[in-house]
């Protein structure tokens, strides 16, 4: 069991965050929203520069930690690119990445990119994406699928886990932005941060975020060890990630006040682009149901098995 990323992975994550900053930081998602077709040219070079496509998260322990750190850094800037999905690409299909799908109308935030996508459902059924629908908010598009096989159960855990790392990076940022806001904004002659009612809301959000942080490492370790519980652990992580995101964004929006819903604040963009990660392939209730199905009466092996 590993509950900390290696120093190398942490350092890689720091460098990635700086590289995204240098490439435009918050501007990346603003520009991509104006022109979704430019996502590859906006983000592709910086990812190539970071050596993202040389990482081998499916077979290399260092690679998976680096991939997780990279996704977290991308989430911090709401980098408008399906990075986690690409890093989780299966090794035995001719695909640039893999998307976990569920529900009757599979969809993913992959609009505007010319890439070959495989999909997998929790049961391991795989398909190739053969067509897209219209571009919807958050770069989401519905997917047309051509069935391939049912041999994808080994693809599922990592493909569920890495997007949660992206979401974790978004929560890091949301809390950072909100701490800055309540420290700066004064009402009643003092910073909002000096009110204990405000502090306690933020501490509740931070508790959620740090719980997710630990679970994300556990699920990453579980996914790379081909453990029998890997899919259940990944679903448990996803459930925790959605719940944490609900709390963190609710608190951050409330404490930002009305301006948090206006696009001149970064929180507004971050919150909007967190939605596809939280709702796709399945939202809170459906994730809970998937987890209940997979874990059954056996339950999770847990951290100390």
């Amino acid at each position, binding site marked *: 069991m590993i509950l900390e990323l290696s120093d190398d992975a942490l350092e890689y994550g720091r460098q990635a965050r700086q590289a995204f900053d240098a490439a435009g930081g918050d501007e990346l998602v603003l520009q991509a929203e104006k022109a979704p077709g430019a996502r590859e040219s906006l983000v592709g070079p910086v990812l190539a520069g970071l050596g993202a496509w040389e990482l081998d998260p499916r077979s290399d322990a260092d690679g998976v930690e680096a991939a997780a750190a990279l996704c977290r850094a991308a989430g911090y800037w709401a980098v408008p690119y399906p990075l986690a999905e690409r890093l989780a690409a299966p090794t035995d299909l001719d695909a640039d990445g893999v998307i976990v799908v569920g529900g009757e*109308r599979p969809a993913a935030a992959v609009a505007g990119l010319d890439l070959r996508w495989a999909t997998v459902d929790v049961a391991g059924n795989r398909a190739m994406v053969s067509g897209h629908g219209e571009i919807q908010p958050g770069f989401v598009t519905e997917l047309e699928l051509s069935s391939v096989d049912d041999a994808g159960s080994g693809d599922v855990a990592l493909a569920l886990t890495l997007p949660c790392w992206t979401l974790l990076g978004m929560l890091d940022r949301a809390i950072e932005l909100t701490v800055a806001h309540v420290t700066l904004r004064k*009402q009643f002659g*003092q910073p909002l941060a000096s009110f204990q009612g*405000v502090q306690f809301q933020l501490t509740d959000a931070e508790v959620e975020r740090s719980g997710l942080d630990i679970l994300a490492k556990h699920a990453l370790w579980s996914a790379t060890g081909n453990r029998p519980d890997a899919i259940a652990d990944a679903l448990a992580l996803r459930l925790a990630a959605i719940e944490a995101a609900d709390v963190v964004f609710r608190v951050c929006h409330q404490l930002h*006040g*009305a301006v948090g819903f*206006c696009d001149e604040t970064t929180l507004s963009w971050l919150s909007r682009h967190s939605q596809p990660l939280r*709702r796709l392939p399945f939202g809170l*209730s459906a994730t*809970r149901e998937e987890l209940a199905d997979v874990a059954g009466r056996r339950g999770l092996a847990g951290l100390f098995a």
Partner: protein
Amino acid sequence: MNPAEAEPAEAEETHHNPSDSPQQARFRREVRQWCREHIPRDWRVTQSGVDEAEFVRFQKAWFAELHSAGYAVPHWPAEWAGGPPTRGGDPVMSVENQDVLYQELAAHDAPRLVLAFVGIHHAASTLLVAGTEKQRRRHLPAILDGEIWVQGFSEPEAGSDLASLRTTARRTGDSFVVNGQKLWASGARHADWCLLLARTDPDAPKRKGISYFLMDMSTPGVDVRPIRNAVGDSHFCEIFLDDVVIPADNLIGAENAGWQVAQATLGAERGMTMLELAERLAHAGFRRLVETAPVDDPVVADRLAQFEIEITGLRGMCRRVVEGAAGGPADASIVKLYYSELLQRLTDFAVEISGPHAHTALTKPMSSGWESGSWVLDFVGSWEWTIPGGASEIQRSIIAERGLGLPREPSVA
């Protein structure tokens, strides 16, 4: 009449509210009849995604329709609302009948009065409490004719701490010259008049140097800019005020007593308007959710049952507040806080069970409230309740201090 056609109406007539007095039951029948005849059946469809001009036209037409029935301003005194004389300042319609009216409008899914809201509640209440006879004669009939009002209170540095507002009004002879910026002015683009708070004595303690004005929005120097929010909606606006001249006659209440006037009239938002919203949440909102939810799922059914309990509690609380039964000093804050957070949880749950495609349905019927059934928009809109009008944090402080008698939070101010 064909008996088959008569049947639904008769069935509805026999459905009493057991707590109605005979008089209320008669009034309920009258309102039901009116609703069946006057509420446009297809407004949710025809008003979805319409432009601003059509929205304004529809709102004004609906207001006129309600007014002609005596249903637009039932809380106004008869002297101003029109109708049979009442004692003193009593409303033209009894509180018990107002309960019935709002229940039935909600049950029949009537459009909401969005544009008239500030005029018929805040402006009217301000005029009735603090206005001169001349000001009342100028504006109250005009409001009934469709004059639209906006509230110019919040500023960039004065949100929860409204008393720290910085917009200034400098007296020069018979007028005031106003400079500053107002924020989060709902519907300012369509407003004819503005309820404006501005600082008239910069040297006085902050609550004692504020005055309250009626400002004509067509005055030179008034610049309204819509603020686009995260879901593309722009009904909140900024109002920039650049050397705007307001005649001294448009001061309402005494100079430098604006804070007291505002305190006396802000409560207009809290009584019957909350009852109306609670009824709308129960009918237009919750009913629609139940009808579309996968109720065969026991988890969903369980959550819906929980919401039903909470909504029932909310409706009861609202009714107690408007009927003035013995309550606590913080009841209005309790109702606002409870409604806000219930609305947020309910719309969040609706989003959760509506599936991903609900996320891309970003149009809603204009003239609906925060329970339009376009759940993502309703959920985002729910923050208009936990943040403005006294944020949930402020309501909690009021409940702690006035309701429970706890000490005030230590302040460095």
